[in-house]
Structures are given as C-alpha cells and as structure tokens.
C-alpha cells in the first residue's frame, strides 16, 4: 500500500514534470536551429546574397550539418584555463536560456509553473546571464576573453537597471506579478500602446542584455576577436551559441507577454478568438525575433562609452521618470488595477 502510494505520489508527478520539460525544451532547441537558419537567410536577403543553399532544399538542413560538425570536433581547453569553470560557463549560459521558459504561458493554461512571482523569476534568470560570460572570460585565462567579460559584466548590469524599471511600469499597469494575469490585463489594450516609451526601452535594453548588435561589445570580433568566446571551440562553443539564441527567443517571448498581449488575439472578435492562443504567442514572438535579426543586419556597433552613456544617462532617468509618470497618472485618474 505504502509502496503504491510512493509510486503514485512521487514518481508519477516526477515523470510528468520531466515530460512537460521535454515538451518545452525540445521545441525550443528546434526553434534555435530554425532561427539560426532564418537569420542567415534574412541577412543574406538584406545583403543581396543567397545565404545557405547547399545542404538540403533551400539549405534547410544547414543547422543540422553545422551541429554535426561542431559535435565531431575536439573540445580544446587552454592549458592555463580553470578547467571546471571553463566548462561550467557554457553550461550556465545554455541552461539559463532554457529555465526561463518554465514560467512562460504559451496559452492560458499552457504553462509549466504558474507561479505568483513569474515576472521576478524571469528578471532573476536574465540577471544571471552575466555569470556565464564573466566566468567564461575569467576561466579562459586569456586577455581578450577577460576584456570581453568585463565589458559584458558592466554592460549587462547597467541595462538591467532600466529593464527593472520597465518591469515596474508593467506591474503597475497590470497589478500582478503573475504572467498570466499580466496577459489577462491586456485584454482591452495591449500595453505597448499606453507604455510605448517603455516598450522601446525594453527592446533596446533586451538587445544589450543579449549582447546583440549594436551592443555586441563583449564579442566585438574586430577588436576582441570574439571576446569571452575566443578560447571556446566545438560543443562548448555551441552551448554558448544555443544559449544566446534561446535567450533571444526568451526575451522576445517576455516582450510579447509584457507588451503585446501574450496569447491574446489582436481583437476580441470571433474568427480571431477561436485561433488557439499558442499560435498568437508564437506569431508575435517570431515578429520580435525577426526584429532582433533585422537590427543585427542594419546597425553598426556602438562605442563603449556611448553604450554606457545611453544606459545610465538616458535610459535610467527616462525609465525612472516614466515610472513616476505612470504611477502618478494611475493614482490621479484612479486607473489602478484592483
């Protein structure tokens, strides 16, 4: 009796959770592959090239070929490197790109963990991203890597502050820290309209958080020959890359939930509402991922002092100001939720 209880009470839920996790992680890995292919195609189109077109029809199997290549190559660990940390860094990076998805609601009930403080959880996860980079840079025992890591630490901490304030305004508007409730609060009006300035700040800060152009100074091929990744090869490098892409998709997903109404259709009218929420969510996320790609194909890299100036002297005061304005307006006009 006790034994059967044990199986029912502990092992079954455990297996279920593992199943859920796989159901989230596998599609994400797949979309990472697709996004990496799509990016190259989009950049190619922007630059009047063809992009990958050899492996498979339209080069569709290119990501698989790349994966196989990296998988078969040797992992090189520099002799002066701190072995444990050197190998730990990409793992941290990769897993952080995945664990954020635990609280993302793909649809009203399609969420692994519907926790009270979902948005704080996401913020915490994104604030940890810096560790992967800084540990990689330090453990590599290489000057380029270290410089890249230091830049990245300063950069990510700086932009996190404004992201924090952006989150605060969304919280004010939604009146909850639960992601599903935030989405529900946008039934009437998606937040990117009333909170337009914060949406812009969020998008730009998200670029800085993910070290994407125009804020890819930690990598900066032209000056740091790859920055913190310079000593990495084969699978360890792939983990970094996959983590980066998973992070981009994650931050796009967060933007969709916070500002673009998550799984809600654009208008609450019949043909649109019968489309499953997950379709809307994925559609919106894809648009934002495209935006990331578009930016990378368009803008040159920022100079470091300009980057810091933008973060501390423009975004921080602006977002702080907007928090005050939002809170004041909501209090004044009685728009406060609940």
């Amino acid at each position: 009796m006790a034994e059967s209880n044990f199986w029912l009470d502990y092992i079954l839920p455990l297996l279920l959770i593992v199943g859920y996790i796989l159901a989230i992680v596998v599609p994400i890995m797949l979309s990472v592959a697709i996004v990496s292919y799509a990016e190259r195609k989009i950049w190619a189109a922007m630059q009047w090239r063809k992009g990958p077109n050899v492996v498979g029809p339209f080069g569709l199997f290119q990501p698989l070929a790349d994966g196989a290549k990296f998988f078969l190559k040797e992992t090189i660990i520099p002799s002066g490197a701190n072995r444990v940390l050197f190998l730990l860094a990409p793992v941290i990076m990769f897993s952080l790109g995945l664990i954020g998805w635990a609280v993302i609601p793909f649809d009203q009930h399609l969420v692994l963990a519907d926790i009270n403080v979902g948005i704080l959880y996401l913020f915490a996860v994104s604030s940890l991203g810096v560790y992967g980079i800084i540990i990689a840079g330090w453990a590599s025992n290489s000057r380029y890597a270290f410089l890249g890591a230091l830049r990245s630490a300063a950069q990510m901490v700086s932009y996190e502050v404004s992201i924090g304030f952006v989150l605060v305004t969304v919280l004010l508007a939604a009146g909850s820290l639960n992601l599903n409730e935030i989405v529900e609060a946008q039934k009437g009006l998606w937040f990117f309209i009333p909170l337009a300035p914060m949406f812009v700040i969020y998008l730009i800060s998200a670029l800085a958080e993910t070290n994407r152009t125009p804020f890819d100074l930690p990598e900066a091929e032209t000056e740091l020959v790859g920055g913190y990744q310079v000593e990495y090869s084969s699978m360890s490098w792939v983990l970094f890359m996959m983590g980066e892409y998973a992070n981009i998709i994650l931050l796009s997903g967060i933007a969709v939930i916070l500002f673009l109404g998550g799984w809600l259709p654009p208008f609450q009218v019949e043909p649109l509402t019968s489309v499953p929420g997950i379709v809307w969510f994925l559609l919106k996320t894809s648009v934002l991922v495209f935006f990331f790609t578009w930016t990378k194909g368009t803008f040159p890299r920022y100079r470091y002092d300009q980057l810091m100036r933008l973060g501390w002297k423009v975004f921080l005061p602006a977002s702080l100001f907007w928090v005050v304005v939002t809170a004041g307006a909501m209090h004044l006009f009685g728009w406060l939720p609940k």
Partner: protein
Amino acid sequence: MIIETIVFYVFAVVTVAAGVMVVVSRNPVHSVLFLILAFFSSAGLFVLMGAEFLAMVLIIVYVGAVAVLFLFVVMMLDINFSELRAGFFQYLPVGGVVGVILLAELILVFASGAADITLPKTVASPTPPADVVSNTEALGNILYTRYAYLFQAAGLVLLVAMIGAIVLTHRRRVGVRRQRIADQVARDPKDVIELKDVKPGEGASWKSD
C-alpha cells in the same frame, strides 16, 4: 512532506558548505562563486518557507547585482594568495581560541537553561496566512504603511552612500575629449562640407584658411 524535508536538508547543507568554502577556498574568485551558491541555496530555503518574493529578490539583488560587482572587483584585483594564507594561519590560533571561547560561552548559557524563560510569543509583524494574501502584497502592505518611516530613512542612507562614492572617487580629468552629442547634431553640413567637381587628371586643390 518527505520530499520537502529532503530538499530542505539539501539546501541547508549546500548553504552551510558553500559558506564554509567562501572562507577557506584559496582563490578569491572561487570564494565569490561559492558565495553566489550560498545565496542560491538560501533563496531555495526561502521558497520552501513560502516566501517566494524574498527568494526572487535575493537572487535579483544579491546574485544579479551585488555579487557581479564583487566578482568584477575580485577578478581585477591582484591579490597575493600565499600572503593571504600566511596571515590566515598566523592569526588562526588566536582567532580560533577566541571563537571557541565565545562558542563555549554561548553553549553554556543556552544549554544551562538559564535562557529558557517563557516569553510572550509575540512577533513585531505577524505573517498573514499565505492563502489569503500573497507575500508580495503582504510585504508591500507593511513596508509602505507601518514601516514607511524606515523605508524613507533607508532611502536617505542609500542616498548618502551614493554621495559618498561620488565625493570620494569621482575626479574630473582634464584633457579628456568628451563627446558632445548636441554639438554634433547641431552641426550644419553646409558649414563643414564643400563639394568639389574634380576634373579628371587635374586633382583637387584645397584652400586652407
């Protein structure tokens, strides 16, 4: 229940072990990383207690910001590890003896039962039941009403700390060329660009004033 107990002990053991490692590890960078581990497992303990807000804030503030700066500084410092170790062992006997005496005293006091006096089981701010009020709301409610004075005063303390950091370290260096974006934007192309129609084989002449 069993699982919660196991998880509690895992987190507790990891916290304590990481705390010990912070002190004894040879490399300061490792110390900071162990500190982060300790923060993490403390956050886990908070979650077990149902204080999810505190857990997240602990990670965001301490792991996401404070420890990054620690790591940042420690990595850039040139610390002579062997010298530090020498100091450690030099003071270990004295420090150890003092520590042991203090510990023994505390144990004696608390084990002798002298401290075992039943006091009114009051707490300054009783926790509301978790199923009625989420703990984010409960914290906000008490922080911005009952402890508003302390909240504001803590803000003043932070302001002073900020002023202090600026007063003691900020130097306006002379001879640094600064970017003035307003000037750059205000510049009119007409004043600074001159279009020359250059005939082939003649070259451009440039009049300097």
